[in-house]
């Protein structure tokens, strides 16, 4: 599969600074977003540190952390294990930094990261940034929000509708950097040609309905432009928070014949143009 991707992050309409952070590492097919929190500039520090640590650890530039191997599932691929470790390492770095620097007290960050290896997608997640997969027009949320209201919906205490209007939407049950240890969700999924992966911060999902997100992803063939459009939609709807969107398309590998046809056609078109 060929992977084409793009991302966009924006401060939104109401916040003074952008505490979101994202990174696309094309060489690794690694996609990461993080939404930071904490007073002053510490949210920005937190999300940047989370993303940086995770990317470095996946690239093998950080010593393999001995993160809670008991929590790893035996069937996981090496890549999922490494990603899982990397998320734990990011938590540790943030926590230690906050402990060492009193002005960073209370800083933390969400994390959603997707790593694609061949046809296998590894996802890790802490907090309320989300990963989605759009497959044959169906938008499926891969991650479960670690927020109080989402947990209440899962337990049947709130309806999804009530949750959307709750004042407590920003209350997280888990985040990186707030505790010495954190529970990290990790999953593996098979990917199919035509699948579209979406990572986004809550600044998108609180402003734009899932139906609209699905429609935009489907209608835009360029992932970078899709990300721009989604960010613009969040801003049109009020842009209450920072908004960050990463989109990746799984494109079928062209087989030799198709590729020959296409390139042949392009060459011919070039000749015709110059003639």
């Amino acid at each position, binding site marked *: 599969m060929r992977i084409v991707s793009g991302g966009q992050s924006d401060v939104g309409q109401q916040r003074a600074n952008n505490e979101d952070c994202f990174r696309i590492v094309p060489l690794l097919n690694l996609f990461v977003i993080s*939404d930071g*929190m904490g*007073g*002053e500039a510490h949210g920005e520090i937190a999300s940047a540190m989370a993303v940086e640590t995770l990317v470095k650890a996946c690239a093998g530039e950080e010593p393999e952390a001995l993160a809670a191997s008991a929590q790893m599932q035996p069937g996981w691929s090496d890549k999922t294990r490494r990603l899982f470790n990397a998320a734990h390492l990011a938590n540790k770095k943030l926590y230690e930094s906050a402990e060492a620097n*009193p*002005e960073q*007290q*209370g800083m*933390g960050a969400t994390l959603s990261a997707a790593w694609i290896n061949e*046809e296998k997608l590894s996802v890790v997640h802490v907090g*309320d940034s989300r990963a989605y*997969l759009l*497959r*044959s*027009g*169906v938008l*499926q*949320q*891969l991650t*479960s929000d670690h927020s*109080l209201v989402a*947990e*209440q*919906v*899962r*337990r*049947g*205490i709130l309806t999804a509708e009530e949750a959307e209007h709750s*004042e*407590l939407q*920003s*209350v*997280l*049950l*888990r*985040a990186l950097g*707030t*505790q010495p240890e954190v529970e990290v969700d990790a*999953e593996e*999924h*098979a*990917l*199919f*040609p035509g699948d579209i992966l979406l990572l986004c911060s809550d600044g998108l999902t609180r402003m734009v309905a899932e139906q609209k997100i699905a429609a935009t992803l489907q209608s835009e063939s360029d992932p970078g432009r899709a990300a721009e459009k989604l960010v613009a939609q969040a801003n049109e709807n009020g842009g*209450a928070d920072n908004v960050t969107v990463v989109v990746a398309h799984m494109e079928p590998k062209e087989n030799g014949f198709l590729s020959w046809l296409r390139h042949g056609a392009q060459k011919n078109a070039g000749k015709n143009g110059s003639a």
Partner: protein
Amino acid sequence: MAKLTLMFEEKTVKEVSLGARPVGIGRSPDNDLTVDNLAVSNYHARVYVDSGKMVVEDLKSLNGTFVNEMRVERATLKHGDSIHIGKHHIKVDATGEAPASYGSGRQAATPKINETMVLDTKMRREMMQQAAALGERTQLASGRMRVPTLVVLGGKTDRQEYPLTSKLTVIGKSHLATVRLSGWFKPKMAAQINKQDDGYYLGAGDKVPSVNGAPIQGPVQLRDGDQVEVCGVRLNFIFRE
């Protein structure tokens, strides 16, 4: 700069000023304010500045931390507040320090709602406990652990039965599909079944599947006993006890 004065009855024991570093309070001598009393935990509480506000935080002490007679886990402090720990109390002097916006009403660690915040373990436990009574009722109603399963009623597949353990299930010819179809001209991904918080939803792939004989219009939630048909394969969706 804010001042914290440790008092025993009406006598001043020690005075410290609050800077960037948290002020530790407890029985252990390495605290900034050492309180020599068995009712006080070794590391009992701490006071620090968070986003310009003074905050006292109980460090899971045995006998608790009180602000103006109210037990708190974490509370913002204002000038004139009194923190009680054991038989001692600590006077809070924040002259010229407290931000103007800071209200006079006491709010025990209430965060600004539109700012993202994380519940610490204790708060989390409490908030979830409040909701637990309701939650348990719901969980009891949903009964025992039941595994959603696809049972093959007809057509060529690689197995007779598929427990749906993953969030995403694909029915198709692809080697990555959960329910693998065999035969010529079968699509790689014929249909999909996705798990959501409230159940399992059947959606189209390259083909539009039918549920109980009717082609689906969009994703539909599967119910116990539904018959799914796609590409000549018939599957029974059931919950196995």
